[in-house]
């Protein structure tokens, strides 16, 4: 019995409603709808209705299982399914897989983020050259187009893989998972992930790194942390690059650091020049200390499975 207007409810066992309608009884139901409805007014078309004289069995597709609990032939049977899931949950699950793999293999991964032209690649080239005898480094390069950066890294002597995101404005955990698989960084090494030059989007996407490192160059303006706060809030270390240019600029170093700390009171800051090498030793010390601290954490030696065998990949 239809709880809306009292007509017989339809029970259609065939999963194809068209076919089911064609095989059901063929008499018409007409009802006057002169009473008030609290829901959308529904209209019964001429056609076949099955009388509601038998129960629905388990495993039968129930066309009366909608919001109103009734089936009205000719009208859509919409249902609302509650999801309550974070939009980034898929990326975050893949990032967790990446992180478990990296930590399990004692690979210390940093996600380098900045606007285009801050000197991320030059900084990496410098670090690879300077640290050649101290640590094994591999690099995942993210750019919309070209393999230029990966070539620069390889020329400096490190293993590198280029991800071209095409139209994409950031790397995501899925891309990085595949890149880690292809690159296979050695146990106990350092992995730099150079994100697409963009101070906005990469902030939202966890890749499975140990830390985000934001690179800002002194030619960019000291209020950048205030203009693009999300990135500075997400990072653990700020490298203020191109310090060799400071004498030629009106850049207020103190104001820049104050702005960054206002957004993120826990942010560590280092002033460096990838060109002259000034301050780079402090970064290397931070790198070695952070990698050693990460390696000492007992949970990092938990189950280590290849990044791409876990979770559902695209």
């Amino acid at each position: 019995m239809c709880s809306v207007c009292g007509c017989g409810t339809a029970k259609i066992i065939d999963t194809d409603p068209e076919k089911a309608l064609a095989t059901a009884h063929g008499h018409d139901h007409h009802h006057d709808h002169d009473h008030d409805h609290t829901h959308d007014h529904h209209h019964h078309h001429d056609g076949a209705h099955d009388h509601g004289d038998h129960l629905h069995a388990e495993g039968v597709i129930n066309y009366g299982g909608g919001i109103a609990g009734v089936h009205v032939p000719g009208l859509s049977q919409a249902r609302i399914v509650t999801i309550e899931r974070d939009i980034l949950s898929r990326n975050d699950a893949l990032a967790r897989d990446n992180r478990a793999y990296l930590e399990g293999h004692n690979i210390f991964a940093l996600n380098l983020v900045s606007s285009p032209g801050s000197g991320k690649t030059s900084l990496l080239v410098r670090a690879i050259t300077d640290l050649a005898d101290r640590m094994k480094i591999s690099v995942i390069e993210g750019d919309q187009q070209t393999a230029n950066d990966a070539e620069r890294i390889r020329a400096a002597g490190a293993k590198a893989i280029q991800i071209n995101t095409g139209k994409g404005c950031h790397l995501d955990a899925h891309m990085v998972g595949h890149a880690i698989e292809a690159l296979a960084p050695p146990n106990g090494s350092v992995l730099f992930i150079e994100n697409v030059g963009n101070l906005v989007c990469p902030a939202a996407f966890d890749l499975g790194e140990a830390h985000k490192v934001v690179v800002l160059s002194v030619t960019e303006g000291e209020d950048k942390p205030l203009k693009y706060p999300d990135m500075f809030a997400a990072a653990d270390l700020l490298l203020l690059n191109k310090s060799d240019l400071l004498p030629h600029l009106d850049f207020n170093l103190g104001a820049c650091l104050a702005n960054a700390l206002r957004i993120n009171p826990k942010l560590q800051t280092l002033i460096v020049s990838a060109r002259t090498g000034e301050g780079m030793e402090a970064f290397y010390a931070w790198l070695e200390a952070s990698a050693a601290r990460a390696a000492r954490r007992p949970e990092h030696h938990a189950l280590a499975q290849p990044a791409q065998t876990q979770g559902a990949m695209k």
Partner: protein
Amino acid sequence: MHEMALIESVVEIAEEVARQNGARRIIRLRLDIGELSIAEPDALTFCFAAVTQGTMAQDAELEICRVAGRGWCLDCATEIAMSQRFGTCPICGSHQVQVTGGDDLKIKDIEIN
């Protein structure tokens, strides 16, 4: 334009849930997008039409529920309304404020048939 990637993720999750529920079509999607979240509702809506082409959510309606930004001022020890993630306390002007709500980025529910 990370909204494109966010919407792709929304459609992927929605299609997965719709299939699990034996649906053929997604008619409506409801999202909770906080005022202090990283996503712009207008950009999400703009991307939605492009991303849903050829999916179960084609022609579906996207409903975005804005969740008001809320914070806690450490100086006033008071709950405050926030319109900016890194804003100041409207009462005392302090920067010592913590976001307590309104950074949501969530799929609430979908309507399917």
